[in-house]
């Protein structure tokens, strides 16, 4: 079964397996350093966006977007 970033538990490191969605979306994430193969930490999940850490930057990502990012379970 695949795990999305949305489903991943908080405080867990994982690795990005796949990013779904259009080229624009993929490019936008890539520019932020979120791309297939990078290690990603889910810092926390608010009722709104989820908070992740990639290398040394933190980002807030909306739930819809987070559900398009597939990570290693």
């Amino acid at each position: 079964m695949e795990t999305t970033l949305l489903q991943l538990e908080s405080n867990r490191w994982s690795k990005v397996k796949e990013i779904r969605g259009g080229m624009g979306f993929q490019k936008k994430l890539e520019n932020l350093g979120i791309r297939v193969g990078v290690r990603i930490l889910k810092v926390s999940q608010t009722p709104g966006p989820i908070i992740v850490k990639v290398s040394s930057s933190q980002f807030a990502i909306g739930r819809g977007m987070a559900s398009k990012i597939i990570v290693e379970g």
Partner: protein
Amino acid sequence: MRVLLVGNPNVGKSVLFSHLTGARVLASNYPGTTVEITKGFLKLGDIRAEVIDAPGTYGLTPTNKAEEVALELLNQADVIVNVVDATNLERNLSLTVDLLQRVKKPFIVVLNMWDETKHKGIDIDIEKLKKLLGVKVIPTCGLTGQGVKELVEKIKTASPPKDLEKEKWSFIGKIIERVQKLSHRHHTIWDILEEVSVKPPWAYPIAVAIVILSFQVIRFVGEGLINYVFAPLFTNFYTPLIMKLSFFIRKSSFLHSILIGKLGGGEIDYSSAFGLLTTGLYVPIAMVLPYVFSFYLVLGVLEDWGYLPRLAILADRAFHKVGLHGYAIVPMVLGLGCNVPGALSTRLFEERREKFIAATLVSIAVPCMAQSAMVIGVLGRLGGQFVGIVFLILFLVWFILGIILNRFLKGESPEILVEIPPYRLPSLKALYKKLWIRLSWFFSEALPYVLLGVLFVNILYYLKIIDFLAVIFSPIMTRIWGLPDQAIGALIVGFLRKDVAVGMLRPLNLSVRQLIVGVTILTIYFPCVATFVVLLRELKIKDMLKSIAIMLSTALVVGGVVNFILSLLKI
């Protein structure tokens, strides 16, 4: 020669720009402080170089107006200075490598926030990085200005990049592996605070406490300055001067009414006399300035510390109800100071719909500090709870109108995707500089309009234009809003300045209910002219007309409803 500063958002381009040019620009600790191009000059020996500070961008394909602006500048520049956050090297290099592959112009990479790498256990080998990128690399620290001198020296001799490896990420991977060493470091108090402030459940009470505390400090400092500094200064030193002047000018002359205005029983009521030297100076300096000062003092701390993006995250869900995402808190908060920067910062949004909703809500339901200060000054003396009622009404208007717009405008609200900066201890020097920029903006942009407004009021009364308009608009004013028809004067002057307009309600001897209705309508019905100009430019004519229609009808409805409800409540 044109030098362009380009880089990711929130890497410190604006601070560097200030160091290079001596020009004063706003800088903060959140992505998107700069949404416009700023130009300044730098002397390089015998030539004068133009330095351009552009909005931050993550990539070469623009995703919003601010990024578009930044990328257009690449073609016009002669030297590219790519500002990089040294504590975030890997991500920042993505743009650097894109630029190096695309732009064959003299190029310098600046490793900014160099001082922070040490605390964070990051060690970067600059010599190796230079070799791999094939361009000059200079470490700098925006806070102290360290490295800026070296940068200036090297701008003239910068050389264009050579061809690099085609595969971007493997190239970046190689660079990181060779130049960057990370050593383990312990969690600091800042890390813990950062974590707690975005982790439910504690994040919410913390946010509420910070917001309440901020407003309390704004009130405390603003009120304190008025009661203990400005009001006594005016009464003790300025009033005797004006009284002397009044003695020498014939009371019934036009000059007297323009300069000094109406004196009731030999006393000056500064907020209602409406002379240039009385109300024209007292309103902006003794009533508005103290609050503008305290507001920007507090905002500066919140901005530089890095709390705003966190507040945006926590407010995200609520903002989705009005068709926006959490980052729309930036235009709203800036709008509380002045609607102009609030409207400008809607450039951060990608979608036209999002921009429209944000801009419309800012100009309808977010009172600027100049207006709020006057509401506190005029209504507050009758009871603090009435000021509370006004803010509550405006908040409800904001929320309900937002829900309606979200419901009826085509499209949906995009999601938040934003970088969260680390917390930083605000530097006193930076805070002071920022406050100074904003206050001088107030003096140069607001003060002339206040004086113009007061002059305008006198002319309107003198030519009996207000009496004429009062008759025409009487049905709306009296029947729907329950205001005396003379209050139309305030609405006319409100186009120029909202603070002067609120002041105009004073001499009309309004009841509490009428005052509440009056100041509420004054916020809603139309933006001041300075905001209007920005909105027109940002929204373009078609959306602007739509927005105006919404403003006027909202004012009509809300004014009527508030008047009705307050009369039921016997206020």
